[in-house]
């Protein structure tokens, strides 16, 4: 790839960096407890939680850093942080 004049870039390549590899703890989403409030999606610093067709939420584990903010803020305790098996 030729060097971009002036050190510039178009969007896209950030996604090459799979920050999911940073995880120590993994969030497990329990749709049974979920009230579909959307708080987890709003507060995720990676923006990697998406809504499915039924209104439930799931993280993209390719990017989820396992910070646990979603688990802490979920009003229904529907997200649990589990140590990841490597």
């Amino acid at each position, binding site marked *: 790839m030729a060097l971009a004049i002036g*050190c510039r*870039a178009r969007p896209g390549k950030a996604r090459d960096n799979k920050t999911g590899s940073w995880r120590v703890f993994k969030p497990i989403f329990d749709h049974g407890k979920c009230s579909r409030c959307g708080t987890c999606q709003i507060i995720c610093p990676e923006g990697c939680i998406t809504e499915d067709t039924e209104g439930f939420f799931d993280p993209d584990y390719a990017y989820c850093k396992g910070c646990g903010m979603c688990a802490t803020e979920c009003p229904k305790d529907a997200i649990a942080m589990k140590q990841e098996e490597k």
Partner: protein
Amino acid sequence: MLEITEGSMAVAEAVRLCRPQVVSAYPITPQTHIVEALAEMVANGKLDADYITVESEFSALSACLGASAAGSRTYSATTSQGLALMYEVCFNVAGMRLPIVMTIANRAMGAPLSIWNDQQDSISLRDSGWLQFYAEDNQEATDLHYIAYKVAENPAVQLPAMVCFDGFILSHTYEPVDMISQEDADKYLPKFSPKERLDAADPISFGMYATPEYYLEFRYEIDKAVKEAAVAIRAAGAEFGKMFGRDYSALVEGYQLEDAETVIVAMGSICGTVKDTIDEMRKEGKKVGLLKIRVFRPFPSEDVAKALKGAKHVAVLDKNISLGAKGATALEVKDALYGSGIPVYDYIIGLGGRDVRKKDIREVVALAEKGKGDQFIGLRKEVL
């Protein structure tokens, strides 16, 4: 059209003809007449630009940076302390490859504070990646602005450019200057249309940071661009010559050089005094000549070496000094002549507005022919 006009006014008019969309400059002696004239032009509808009265020179160049990245042709002017305050932004603008053109009304650096002319200010930014043009007279100062924009905005260049002219000596002096028409200016310098700019239609991140894996290559590319800008400068200078009869395709210019034994090398308005002295000395039978350097960055090493091939003594006049070492031009000329065996002598002259007379030039020639150099000219022993 030929007019008798003050240097600053001629420059301001040339800038007006280049149609900058954003002007952002902070007042500093001796550049003030330029920015005042531009403000008046905007106020009277003669210049269709947004004029930002910034809070410092640092902010002036930063605002130009933003405007240029957003797709506008921009302009600023400064000198001395103001240019020094812009130091950080200068490196930034060149690294971001934005084609800003800035006039430098050359002035000495403090301390001690001095409002008078020498070239320390712009010379001290020779590392920054900006193209540097030095004008001998107000005609050159005027013409070099059209050429600077054309070269800077050339897609093969994309570098900022400084047009330097000696403060007070040129900026505040009335000389006859031929001003081109707006129609001709538009023909020579078309609208600024950068391929990349800040635009929601094509989002780009400007000014990212480079890890050690990339930085070296970025600097290599900028260096290459500065060096190869010589090609664009020659082309733009030749085109100007074809359109207006004044050819700027050469980065250096010889005067009475062909059979000269002692050659003076100089930049800026001092060349006028040197030429007058050469005329006198030639009548006395002395074989002296001048090599004027008009483009300092990229430094035209090959052109200098070729021009000085036949010289027996080379006397470089420097209106600057790298304190603890030598004048910048002398060091570059020495490098260009390395291996030739031709002696190069450095003369620090005219600092802080010290007047340079024909007798000073004669003294330089005499010293060079005696093999004496690397010294200050005109020191007042009674003051030391």
